[in-house]
């Protein structure tokens, strides 16, 4: 029998939260999932930390209570406890596995002795559903090693420089978005792009807190709001092309958000096709924008940034960190940001498009915010040193 498919259900006692989490991960990792932590009422065996004050009291109560299930005691003290498997601290994996194997054997022996006659089982009887309380208690912990292989769990940011912008983000033929005389034409409506449909689908999925799929006549986008993840079986080039196209009414009529279809619910999903919801939408918004700003923004009115985007997990467009640092200080119009930072407006527009898609940036609505001008930025007294550190970080020569 594969032990990992039938892990021993263990309850941990007398451990503070950190030790508890560490032990749960230890059983999953070095002990290869031979045992999994569950709530005490559902456990098959108990593990006590006999060196903590609570642990000693609980252990005494457990011994006095004469419970039938196997007992493992972790202790610095070498003295043995009758009927318990003792493991000395620091716990060694071999000793833990040995004790768990003995506990399993004891359980099997007890089960054999108490086994009811075979006739009490009917062929084809479905296994009872797993009780809610049987689920592992550390819900927020990633127990599956596969989980950690998901792209969404570790994907580091891609930092674009000015040279890479055109090739990766694209541009709109016929408009110079950097020409102030053409600013009025340099906007786009996110609702006419894949971005708008993704935003709507996220909203539905989050409000209902249900897995949903966005059908587009293309591969469906699966939205998993519990994990803040999406799954889409296409490569990045295909997605970039699709996100950059305005969706016409024919394709738009095919767009729908539905509960997950049964065939997709059971399908295996490639781990490298998972994305975090925010990183996915941010990128899709950059590709829809192509250096334009969203039509919901009035270019003559200031915008503000609620908080810094989580840049280590997002596509970092040129000057995005500088724009964020400036806007966090106070609201400004988009052309003003470009002027103060001495950068092309397209970099400000693409950043605002992405930040608006995540709800991080918005237009100022209060009169008071327009009334007072944002402070002038003053060069830091250590600017020379800061520049040299920056150029080293960016791998540039001074």
């Amino acid at each position, binding site marked *: 029998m594969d032990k990992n498919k039938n892990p021993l259900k263990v309850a941990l006692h007398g451990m*503070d*939260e*950190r030790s508890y*989490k560490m032990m749960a*991960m230890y059983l999953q990792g070095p002990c290869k999932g031979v045992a999994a932590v569950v709530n005490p009422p559902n456990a098959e065996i108990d593990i006590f930390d006999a060196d903590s004050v609570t642990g000693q009291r609980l252990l005494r109560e457990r011994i006095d209570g004469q419970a039938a299930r196997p007992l493992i005691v972790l202790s610095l003290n070498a003295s043995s406890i009758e009927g318990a498997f003792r493991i000395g601290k620091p716990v060694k994996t071999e000793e833990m596995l040995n004790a768990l194997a003995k506990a399993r054997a004891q359980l099997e022996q007890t089960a054999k002795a108490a086994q009811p006659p075979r006739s009490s089982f009917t062929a084809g009887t479905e296994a009872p559903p797993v009780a809610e309380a049987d689920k592992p208690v550390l819900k*927020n*912990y*990633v127990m599956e090693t596969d989980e*950690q292989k998901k792209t969404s*769990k*570790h994907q*580091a*940011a891609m*930092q674009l*420089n000015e040279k890479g912008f055109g090739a990766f983000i694209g541009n709109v033929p016929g408009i110079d978005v950097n020409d102030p005389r053409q600013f009025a034409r340099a906007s786009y409506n996110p609702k006419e792009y894949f971005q708008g449909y993704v935003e709507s689908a996220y909203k539905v999925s989050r409000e209902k807190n249900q897995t949903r799929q966005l059908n587009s006549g293309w591969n469906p986008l699966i939205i998993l709001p519990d*994990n*803040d993840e999406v799954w889409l079986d296409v490569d990045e080039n295909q997605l970039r092309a699709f996100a950059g196209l305005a969706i016409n009414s024919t394709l738009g009529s095919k767009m729908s958000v539905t509960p997950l279809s049964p065939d997709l619910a059971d399908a295996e999903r490639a781990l490298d096709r998972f994305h975090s919801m925010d990183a996915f939408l941010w990128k899709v918004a950059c590709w829809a924008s192509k250096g334009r700003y969203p039509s919901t923004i009035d270019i003559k009115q200031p915008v503000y940034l*609620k*908080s*810094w985007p*989580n*840049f*280590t*997990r997002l596509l*970092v467009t040129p*000057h995005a*960190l*500088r*724009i*964020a*640092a*400036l806007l*966090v*200080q106070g609201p400004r119009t988009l052309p003003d940001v470009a002027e*103060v*930072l*001495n950068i092309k407006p397209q970099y400000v527009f693409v950043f605002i498009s992405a930040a608006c898609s995540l709800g991080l940036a918005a237009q100022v609505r209060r009169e008071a915010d327009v009334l007072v001008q944002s402070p002038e*930025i003053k*060069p*830091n007294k*250590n*600017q020379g*040193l*800061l*520049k*040299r*550190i*920056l*150029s*080293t*970080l*960016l791998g*540039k*020569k*001074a």
Partner: protein
Amino acid sequence: MNLPGGEKLHLYGTPGQERFDFMWDILVNGGIGLVLLLDNTRADPFQDMKFFLDTFDKFISTTTVAIGVTQMDLSSKPTIDDYHVQLRNIGLKPPVFAVDARVKSDVSLLIQSLLYTLDPGLEE
């Protein structure tokens, strides 16, 4: 870190345990900013954050702070948004990034955000 022009930049990390607090005042002397790394698997990471922000309050008020949250692949809660809510309540809007301290680009972005917070006009 070897800087252009032959200068050398020394980065000092200090253990967060309170028994090492005698080092903290010495290390911030002459520092340009604070990078705070928080472990998201800790029982109460907000308490840790508040503790260090209070402890380095004076230093942060004259420089700045950038916060990296580690171990988010093991414990996804609290989220980065949750950190921002806590920080807003104490009137701060620093960069807060999910960070794997072993990944160069994560740490580089965190330090870049610290530098740009000090001076957004800093040109690349």
